[in-house]
């Protein structure tokens, strides 16, 4: 079984947010609730950006705090939410150091409230004109239109990667054999700043990049051990813990 991980090359990333849009469309996210977000920072006189999916940590604090095991780690290393078990206590949102989780019943992050504009049909909390096919819905892995009263997060496009053939080292949009199994954000990235592959396979591209370009994990001191690695190079940097700075 693969242990899926992602590498994001910050020197290639242009901050175009195509990954966010692709994720929105692929996973029927509500506006503003970006499982895959791009954060912007003021650094010196420059505006910098930083793409941030769920880190699918090796030691995920969201999993250990969840009182019902609704959030759990799959055999392939991904962390997903079982919407049939989630009680909406939001402890996982508290415990995630990366702020990548979303509660369905909150006030809308972007007006107008799309749940009112595209009302649901009972099973679904809303029904937008663009949406993931119902055949792909998998509530046990948090895939589909998010139901009421539960928390959601990036699944690494579990509905895609879980169908990948056994033994593949990388899921690459340029490879016709793996294209359909590649996460939407990776597949759509115009400058090809994202790589997705098996962290347990020494021959995978992701492992090669991590080794050759000093792959760095975000907030590594907290011990969550993300499975998303960043390549900062010489011209970019991993942002500090928080956007806010003491004293303004």
């Amino acid at each position, binding site marked *: 079984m693969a242990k899926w991980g992602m590498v994001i090359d910050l020197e290639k990333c242009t901050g175009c947010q195509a990954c966010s849009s692709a994720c929105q469309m692929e996973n029927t996210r509500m506006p503003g609730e970006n499982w895959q977000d791009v954060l912007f920072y003021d650094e010196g006189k420059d505006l910098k950006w930083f793409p941030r999916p769920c880190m699918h940590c090796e030691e995920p604090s969201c999993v250990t705090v969840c009182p019902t095991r609704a959030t759990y780690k799959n055999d392939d290393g991904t962390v997903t939410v079982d919407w049939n078990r*989630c009680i909406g206590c939001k402890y996982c949102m508290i415990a995630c150091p990366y702020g990548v989780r979303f509660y369905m019943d909150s006030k809308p992050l972007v007006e107008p409230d799309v749940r009112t504009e595209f009302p649901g049909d009972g099973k679904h909390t809303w029904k937008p004109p663009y949406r993931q096919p119902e055949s792909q819905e998998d509530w046990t892995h948090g895939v589909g239109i998010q139901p009421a009263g539960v928390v959601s997060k990036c699944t690494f496009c579990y509905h895609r990667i879980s169908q990948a053939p056994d033994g593949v080292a990388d899921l690459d949009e340029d490879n016709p054999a793996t294209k359909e199994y590649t996460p939407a954000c990776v597949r759509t990235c115009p400058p090809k700043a994202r790589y997705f592959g098996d962290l347990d396979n020494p021959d995978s591209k992701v492992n090669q990049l991590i080794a050759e370009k000093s792959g760095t994990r975000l907030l590594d001191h907290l011990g969550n051990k993300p499975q998303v690695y960043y390549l900062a190079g010489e011209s970019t940097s991993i942002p500090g813990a928080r956007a806010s700075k003491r004293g303004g």
Partner: protein
Amino acid sequence: MNTAVGSKATSGMLLPVTVIGLLVTIGYALSQVLSVGHASFATSSDGVSWGLPVVTYVFLSMTSTGLALVAALGSVFGNRAYYPIVKRCTWLSIATLVGGFTALALELGHPFRMLWAIPTGMQMQSPMFWMGVFYLIVLSLLALKFFKIHSGDWSGKLLGQASVVAEIAALGTLGAAFGMMAMRPAWYGTAIPVSFMLAAMAAGTAAVGFTIYLSHGMDQERMPTPLKGLMQDLFPKIFAATLFAYLTFFVFHNATGVWSNAEGLQVFEDYAGSAFFHLEWIGLVVALYLMANPGTHRQGNMQILAAVLALVALFIGRYEYIVGGQLVPLFKGTWVPELIQYTPSLTEWMVTGAGLFLALAIYAIGDRFLNLGDQPQG
């Protein structure tokens, strides 16, 4: 034969007032939660996840533990001077816990799912799992203890001891649920569960003091002699001691937070400049002064004032700790303010009201029908 409480004048009004308050608050909160969902709360995915309803739950649970520990001074540790308030404390402990659970239930996305998902999940690494286990044990033991006392059986020291252990485990775990969160620096700390204990003792003492006066027309003279003796001697002493212990933690906790430059602790500076902070420390200091000063600590009006000040201050303290710990944004980018703004919505205030009124209504039922002033004979 048991000794019944004297006056029922105030408690006669207490029940209808609290029931009306409960119906109004829970009616409004439920109507909003069922129609709008938690979008009627001021909490959000890019801001504060645990808002005023969680504060209410923690405050009431903490008070419940404090009450049970005060009761244990008589029923477990054998200080007979506390006997006049053991039954009242035990009932009030049940009432506040049920009020807290209600506030929490109104906050959860799927409260009924919790009933099967937690036992079948068995996630023993989660502080919240153990919190549920311990509070279930606590509630069961409290109910059993009250039933025995109400039946006139004041024996059962083992039951009392088990109850004390369960109470400490439950509240300690509740504190740990926050204190273990290293990713939230303003919450993190190994001493947090102990600080919850200190606050609980002060809150429990204040709560029983206030409700005793409620049940006796706000007048010490209407109390039976043993109870009056307690209120004039041990009550102010234990109240002052618990306030002093909590104040010591309060001073050093806030001083440490303000002094530190560590990321995530900026909220302490913000809090130290707020009106609520000043209300909190003034409330605690004045309450301590009133209970420590020989000229005031026996006076009924001063005890009532001290109890109210302490309860308000301790509620503010829970609010500032729980909400404040979430105000420094995580990874949210430049457009997020230095500190997140959070003002509870009307629905959240109604949830708080529902928890408090339910606790008081249950207390009032006990006060009217269950002779909470009973004492063992001999």
